[in-house]
């Protein structure tokens, strides 16, 4: 009985962390000034937020097929989203978008 409660508390904690990171990433995507900083914001949500939420669900599912599938989703998400971010930044640079530098650096 005890460890059920512990699992539930852990799940709730991870979900809270995930949602908080997700919302902060969303606000960052909305508020930050240029493409590269926004990409930083999405990086936060894509990696840690997905990890926290999917891991919380995995805790609830236990050792079942559902957990295995969640694990697949997690691995796939983490690998592809980092790859997509990398390729996106590279193409953006190639296309002539430059990072917005701070005021001191502005010449």
């Amino acid at each position: 009985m005890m460890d059920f409660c512990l699992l539930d508390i852990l799940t709730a904690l991870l979900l809270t962390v995930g949602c908080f990171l997700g919302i902060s990433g969303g606000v960052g995507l909305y508020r930050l000034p240029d493409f590269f900083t926004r990409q930083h914001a999405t990086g936060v949500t894509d990696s840690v937020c997905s990890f926290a939420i999917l891991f919380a669900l995995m805790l609830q599912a236990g050792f079942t097929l559902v957990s295995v599938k969640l694990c697949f989703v997690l691995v796939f998400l983490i690998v592809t989203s980092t790859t997509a971010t990398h390729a996106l930044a590279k193409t953006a640079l190639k296309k002539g978008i430059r990072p917005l530098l701070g005021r001191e650096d502005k010449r």
Partner: protein
Amino acid sequence: MYVASALAILVVMGLTLVRAILGPTAFDRLLAVNMFGTKTVLLIAVVGFMTERPDFLDIALVYALVNFLSTLAVLRFFERQISEGTAPTGEG
């Protein structure tokens, strides 16, 4: 618990949607679409648990796949534009 997370994910989706609509450059929009896809994957997983039928995670996997695929398609579109020399700036 699941309902609260689902609503939080919906809030994030809303913010992302705003960026996709405003986004000054095409890359901002693409970034927003990419993040929207990731959030959809999470939403599906959470809704599956919320409705007590969590065995439909295949769909989430497909979403992750398709998200990657469409991002690549757009990148290919940009590279094609670069190699053709049209639209040198990323506006649009």
